[in-house]
């Protein structure tokens, strides 16, 4: 039975740490409000919960009763949700403390957290660089040691990519493993709540608590919560596939060195390494950038200033209200994606774009099935093509920004679980290696991650 004061001690400590790391702009909750809430939460936390007293950051696109939920946008500035996400409720039932709302790219659209209406989040190791996105705030908090774990969300890699940039663990579950009730929808067929942790174990523990069937989400599979595997002695019996499409000839040499080292280590642990091919990989990013904006254009139609959130002028008639609110309340990237999404769904273009993309998606998913059906257990790839880039570097060209998702979007498209763990440093900047698993076989993925984590020099220069 835990010390009942532990929660209160943690509450005060994390409030301190968040205040001290304000320059990261990772947490959007004002320190005073955060501290008061944490203390109150600590008093009510269940001492027998498996996460008792653990402060967990929550990305600001996940609804909480504590604090506001802005999704990094002006259109929800000051919005207080009258209900909480299932994942958040489960954290609280397990005794965890909700340690504020983390900064993110607006409505989770972005790969750097530069598209937040509340200022960009800062990389803990280099303030000129981005922590990644869209869940950059949560990643920065964990990397800076403010909280041991944090919730993020994935649509195209928004947990794994920041995890790679920040040198921490990021897990995306199988689509349907974790309830989306209360996760503000961006690309509904791609979205999943994911978890950041200092270690595989921290992240996995939290994932286990939030996972499992939920009557409020029809896309959540009717399964028990994730059971955590034990740390394996070796990787004997594992077949790790290395897809050639993820190791192009122009891959950053530092990233290649880090991956080669990790692969060697897995082989030394007893895994069989096999080169495989996922032939439709090149089409993943364009496929994603049709499907995600299309779904987003529909999911974001509800933000119009009518029933909640602020209003932006437009008092003449209701259409003016909608147009002004949405025109001013949404940032440039969100507006762009809504327009692209509306376009690809519009009559005359639906078949050429959206239907095509859904068909390509099935080919991408089939690529994975083909490889897994031939005896491969897991895939290993780089998480990102480069370490964290500098703020402002990619923001002017949307397509350049999209290309940083090149290794991560496939898992979202195929609905597969994937995990990033730190595998080295390039000139001091972290770089991540990615494991992609089979649907609902997170336990195998975690076993491999545990084993690799134990041996790989995560902070070592490659």
């Amino acid at each position: 039975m835990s010390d009942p004061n532990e929660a209160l001690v943690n509450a005060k400590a994390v409030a301190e740490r968040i205040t001290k790391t304000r320059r990261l702009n990772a947490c959007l909750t004002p320190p005073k409000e955060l501290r008061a809430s944490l203390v109150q939460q600590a008093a009510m936390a269940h001492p027998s919960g498996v996460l008792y007293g653990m402060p967990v950051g929550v990305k600001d696109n996940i609804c909480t009763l504590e604090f506001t939920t802005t999704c990094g946008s002006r259109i929800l500035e000051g919005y207080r949700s009258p209900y909480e996400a299932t994942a958040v409720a489960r954290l609280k039932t397990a005794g965890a403390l909700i340690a504020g709302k983390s900064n993110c790219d607006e409505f989770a659209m972005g790969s750097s957290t530069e598209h937040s209406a509340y200022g960009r989040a800062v990389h803990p190791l280099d303030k000129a660089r981005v922590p990644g996105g869209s869940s950059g705030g949560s990643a920065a908090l964990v990397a800076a040691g403010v909280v041991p774990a944090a919730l993020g969300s994935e649509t195209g890699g928004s947990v794994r990519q920041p995890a790679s940039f920040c040198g921490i663990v990021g897990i995306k579950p199988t689509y349907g493993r974790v309830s989306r009730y209360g996760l503000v929808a961006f690309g509904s067929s791609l979205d999943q709540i994911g978890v950041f942790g200092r270690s595989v174990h921290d992240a996995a523990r939290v994932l286990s608590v939030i996972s499992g069937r939920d009557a409020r989400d029809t896309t959540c599979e009717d399964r028990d919560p994730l059971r955590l595997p034990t740390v394996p002695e070796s990787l004997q019996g594992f077949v790790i596939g290395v897809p050639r499409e993820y190791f192009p000839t122009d891959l950053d040499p530092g990233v290649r060195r880090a991956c080669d080292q990790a692969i060697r280590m897995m082989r030394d642990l007893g895994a069989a390494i096999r080169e495989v091919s996922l032939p439709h990989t090149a089409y993943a990013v364009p496929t994603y950038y049709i499907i995600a904006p299309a779904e987003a254009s529909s999911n974001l139609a509800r933000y119009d200033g009518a029933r909640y959130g602020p209003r932006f002028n437009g008092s003449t008639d209701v259409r003016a209200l909608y147009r002004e609110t949405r025109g001013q309340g949404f940032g440039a990237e969100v507006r762009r994606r809504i327009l692209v999404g509306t376009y690809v769904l519009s009559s005359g273009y639906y078949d050429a774009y959206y239907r095509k993309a859904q068909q390509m998606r099935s080919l991408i998913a089939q690529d994975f099935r083909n490889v897994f059906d031939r005896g491969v257990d897991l895939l290993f790839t780089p998480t990102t093509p480069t370490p964290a880039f500098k703020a402002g570097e990619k923001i002017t060209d949307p397509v350049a920004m999209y290309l940083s998702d090149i290794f991560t979007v496939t898992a979202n498209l195929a609905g597969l679980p994937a995990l990033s763990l730190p595998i080295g440093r390039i000139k001091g900047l972290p770089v991540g290696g990615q494991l992609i698993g089979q649907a609902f076989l997170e336990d195998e993925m975690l076993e491999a991650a545990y084993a690799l984590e134990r041996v790989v020099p995560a902070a070592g220069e490659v």
Partner: protein
Amino acid sequence: MSVSREEVLKIAQLAELHVEEDRLPELAEQMSRILDYVAQLAGQTSETAKPFIPGPDALRFRVDEVKPSPLAFGPDTFAPEFRDGLFLVPKLGQFGDDTGESE
């Protein structure tokens, strides 16, 4: 695939998004660039490929009973304008005072 100013305007109207006149050319250009990029899918799939959506294969139902999802507080708290139990918006003027009920 070039997207014209007029098309951007039309799409913006469909999406109820106000776009400043002077932003139109830049937006048209960016959209063209994005659409060109994603258009590389053309000719890459067969017509018979079935779309793939992850998640359960079939809808699970909910029993028909009155069991509302909880709201910690009501619309009167979060609505920007609320009177007599009703959400208020500026009047639907120019675009059809249509099938609204009159009392």
